[in-house]
């Protein structure tokens, strides 16, 4: 009982500091998400292109990025790019590094979505005389989203958790804020338990949201 009341008093003391880390975690996750979705769409569209060179480039990029640990990619962006004249502050480097690293997983999600669309439906739309743009927006996209959404949701949850890797390049997100607290207070159990609970508080609602969306799409 004493342990528990100790935990609550620690929580009371540490939560304000951890909350500022949590805000940074959300911000870096969101920024990386936007980058990964945009880049992922580029890789996926290149991957289903009629032009072979684009398909090859997309494949090479995906396999290369996927084959390098995310932490190494972040180090590269944060420590190596400055030597090449590109100086990014820690937050931007974290968002870009995570965004690029995750773009290849998003690309695979999107590709699975696109390739699930029955080509005969595209023919039906063509035979109605719909333009390529209309076919993309009204037939391919809505059908691809249903297939891509569940893995997309999982990818977002993974990205949220992997944003903790940005702590290694000094981004003051939740994990780093916690590490600093733990080192200075020696209260490892309280601090890391709080961090774990805070990650869960973000990822569980996200998981729930995705499963709700899935249901909504599946009903049609």
């Amino acid at each position, binding site marked *: 009982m004493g342990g528990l009341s100790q935990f609550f008093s620690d929580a009371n003391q540490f939560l304000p500091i951890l909350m500022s880390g949590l805000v940074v975690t959300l911000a870096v996750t969101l920024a990386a998400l936007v980058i990964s979705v945009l880049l992922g769409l580029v890789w996926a569209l290149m991957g289903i292109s009629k032009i072979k060179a684009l398909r090859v480039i997309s494949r090479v990029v995906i396999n290369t990025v996927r084959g390098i640990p995310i932490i190494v990619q972040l180090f590269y962006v944060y420590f190596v790019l400055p030597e090449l004249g590109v100086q990014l502050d820690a937050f931007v480097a974290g968002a870009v590094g995570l965004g690029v690293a995750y773009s290849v997983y998003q690309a695979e999600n999107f590709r699975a979505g696109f390739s699930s669309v*029955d080509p*005969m*439906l595209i*023919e*039906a*739309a*063509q*035979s*109605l*005389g*719909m*333009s390529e743009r*209309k076919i993309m927006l*009204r*037939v391919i996209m*809505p*059908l691809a989203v*249903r297939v891509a959404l569940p893995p997309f949701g999982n990818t977002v949850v993974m990205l949220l958790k992997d944003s903790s890797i940005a702590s290694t390049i000094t981004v003051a997100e939740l994990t780093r804020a916690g590490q600093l607290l733990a080192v200075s207070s020696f209260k490892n159990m309280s601090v890391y338990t709080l961090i774990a609970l805070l990650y869960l508080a973000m990822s569980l609602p996200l998981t729930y949201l995705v499963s709700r969306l899935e249901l909504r799409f599946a009903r*049609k």
Partner: protein
Amino acid sequence: MISLKNVSKSFGDVQVLRDISFEIARGEVVCLIGPSGSGKSTILRCVNGLERRDGGQITVDGVALTDKSLPAIRAKVAMVFQRFNLFPHRTALENVAEGPIHALGRPAAEARSEARDLLARVGLSDKCDAYPAKLSGGQQQRVGIARALAMKPQAILFDEPTSALDPERVGEVLKVMRSLANEGMTMVIVTHEIAFAREVADRVLFMDGGRIVESGPARQVLTQPKVERTREFLDRVLNPL
């Protein structure tokens, strides 16, 4: 209305259409029959630009089919598919209204109200809000026909419209097609329904090996074929045992 001149097409080494020439007059109903792989469907797909011909000319309503004229030709010639190809994420009504709104740019309210009328015409006024997955094959194909009609086409191409249906569901689709024929719609139908062809078609083309082997008035070709290959095919189809 539709004219083909020396049309040829190969898939790799296989020549699926050899020097195909024929004309279809306005209001005419023409059935293409023949064994699988004889090139019947490929003809329809070439006319609709879903397949690119290797040689020859296709003319629709006086306009030569080119990449440039393709959209205009697709607006005149609608297509009904063997596997219906309805958009699974849209209701029956939305499927029918999709072309008029999003290809022809017609006002949505008007297109939807016309779609409702068309679905009533194919006997599906109670299924407007149903998604394709909730409809039987016959119902889906009737939505497919309504979707083609919504384009106000001058001709409709039917690619084996009853081949994917339960035997019990074939009749309801043929009935809709018969009524279209009676109203003077120009129709080109790839089919294995010999009895339907005999009753409804003005003309029958029998194809084999990428060529038109025999063509003529439906009754003549189907009951007194002049070419041995046609006779052999009809005999096998009509007396499978």
